[in-house]
């Protein structure tokens, strides 16, 4: 499979400040790529360079055979880009926002396109109300609908669910998954690890202007380390005693009465540990398995800890 977007050694400075040191990434067609990073990591700048809004100081952006920005207009016909969270016109109605984009894309029957999208995104009732009066969830739906005008094959979304309540966020995730099911390629930026985990096929971690890690969500979690067994004891003395018994494992104290034990050989090794404690006559009050989250990777990578 050949990649649909290929970024090669892109560099960008604003004055003396280096925003992107050296970024390379590839996106496969029909997948969701998640660019993950903290505020100020350079996500928006990279997105602007890929979509042709900014010029890179060095490096190259390819869309298949075409090179950005040389073939800018041709490439821009194939994608849509929604900027800072949601770029809708507050004064115009939902219907007018959609016809505006349809007209700028020079499509036939802008009104019909707008109506269809309003129906699809459940905005028919609010079609003739100013977008400024919409709720946060409605604005994002309208924003996504605007991105789909003209049925582009690649959809860029900048932090699509930032600031949304959980219900609206789930709605939007569902819509993004539906787009993928229709064969669209989606490139999104996010600060939410859960979002990247839920949605993406491939994740790139951007830190200090560099992609410091890349892989599938599963590979990323493996990077975060093994699963942990959490053990709670009746008191501190028992916990200390248990820690000594499990000296061959990597044990960390969470609370005075609670320990976390790394499971290097997978979840099943927790049986051995529990048996070992039982044999030593120590009572475990409670236990649980904790899978590594993307937060663990995120914390490791953003803090630069190994």
């Amino acid at each position, binding site marked *: 499979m050949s990649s649909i977007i290929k970024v090669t050694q892109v560099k960008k400075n604003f004055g003396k400040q280096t925003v992107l040191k050296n970024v390379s990434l590839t996106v496969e067609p029909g997948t969701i790529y998640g660019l993950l990073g903290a505020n100020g990591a350079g996500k928006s700048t990279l997105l*602007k360079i890929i*979509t*042709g*809004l900014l010029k890179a100081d060095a490096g190259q952006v390819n869309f298949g055979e075409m090179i950005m920005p040389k073939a800018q*207009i*041709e490439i*821009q*016909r194939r*994608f*849509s*880009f*929604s*900027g*800072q*969270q*949601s*770029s*809708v*016109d*507050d*004064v*115009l109605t939902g219907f*007018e926002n959609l016809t*505006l*984009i349809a*007209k*700028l*894309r*020079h499509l036939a029957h802008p009104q019909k396109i707008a109506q269809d999208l309003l129906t699809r995104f459940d905005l028919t009732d609010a079609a003739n109300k*100013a977008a400024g009066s919409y709720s946060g969830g409605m604005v994002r739906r309208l924003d996504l609908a*605007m991105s789909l005008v003209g049925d582009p094959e690649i959809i*860029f979304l900048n932090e699509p669910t930032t600031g949304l309540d959980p219900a609206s966020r789930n709605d939007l995730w569902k819509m993004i998954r539906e787009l993928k099911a229709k064969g669209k390629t989606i490139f999104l930026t996010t600060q939410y690890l859960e979002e990247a985990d839920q949605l993406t096929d491939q994740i790139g971690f951007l830190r200090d202007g560099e992609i410091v890690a890349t892989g599938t969500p599963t590979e990323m979690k493996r990077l975060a380390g093994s699963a942990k067994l959490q053990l709670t004891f009746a008191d501190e003395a028992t916990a200390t005693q248990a820690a000594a018994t499990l000296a061959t494992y990597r044990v960390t104290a969470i609370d005075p009465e609670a320990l976390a034990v790394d499971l290097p050989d997978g979840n099943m090794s927790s049986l051995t540990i529990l048996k070992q404690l039982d044999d030593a006559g120590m009572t475990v009050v409670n236990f649980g398995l904790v899978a590594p989250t993307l937060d663990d990777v995120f914390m490791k990578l953003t803090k630069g800890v190994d």
Partner: protein
Amino acid sequence: MKNYLSDTMTLANRLIKHNLRSMDTIITVVAMPVAMLLMFIYILGGSMQLPGVSHGEYVNYILPAILFMTLATGSAYTALRVFMDKSSGMFDRFKSMPIAKSAVLNGQVVSSVLFLMFSTVIVLLISFLTGFRAQANLGQWLLTFILVIGFAIMVTWLSVPFGLAAKSIDSASAFSYLLLLLLFVSSGFSSVEGMPTPVRVFAEHQPMTTMITAVRQLLAGQNPTADFWQSIVWIIGITLVSFFFSKRLYHQI
């Protein structure tokens, strides 16, 4: 590009809708010059003694400055709309679309100039009610119109880089105060002869005085003098410089 004009009009049409839906904007833009007009005629005008200008003619004397004041106030809203489009991400969306890139700013300018001309016509109609009369013939009216629309285009382009560079809503429109200040330190409301020497030298040579004099002469029924041509040069010059800065900033955001 064949779609260039239609893109510009689509984008201008969007902002015309903005203007029509916030009538309070037009009222704000018109209210200030009208209030100034009334104040100068009925409050200050009584004690204004200008050489060669009778009391009844004072409204004719200040009218050019009143018209330019309308345009200067209105251009603050252009800076504001540019700032809003920048900060809301609309510019990003438009820039990422397969359209002629200059259509976005040009759409702003077209809608702004239409809005400014509309406001100016309202102020002009009100000034007729307060006793303004022109001696201009059709040709002189036409030249006046050219200067006024030229001024509108100039302040609009001037407002664009301020809107693009602004960090907040307030700073976006702050430049229009500078324009208003220039209007007051000119021959707009009183003769420059009465001003202290350093102020007078500045007032005599700054572009506002030249443009006000040019409009005043035309409306008084005189044919274009050097002031008219100098005004045209000022307008073209300031517009070109602003245009250049606008393009530069627009590509950087």
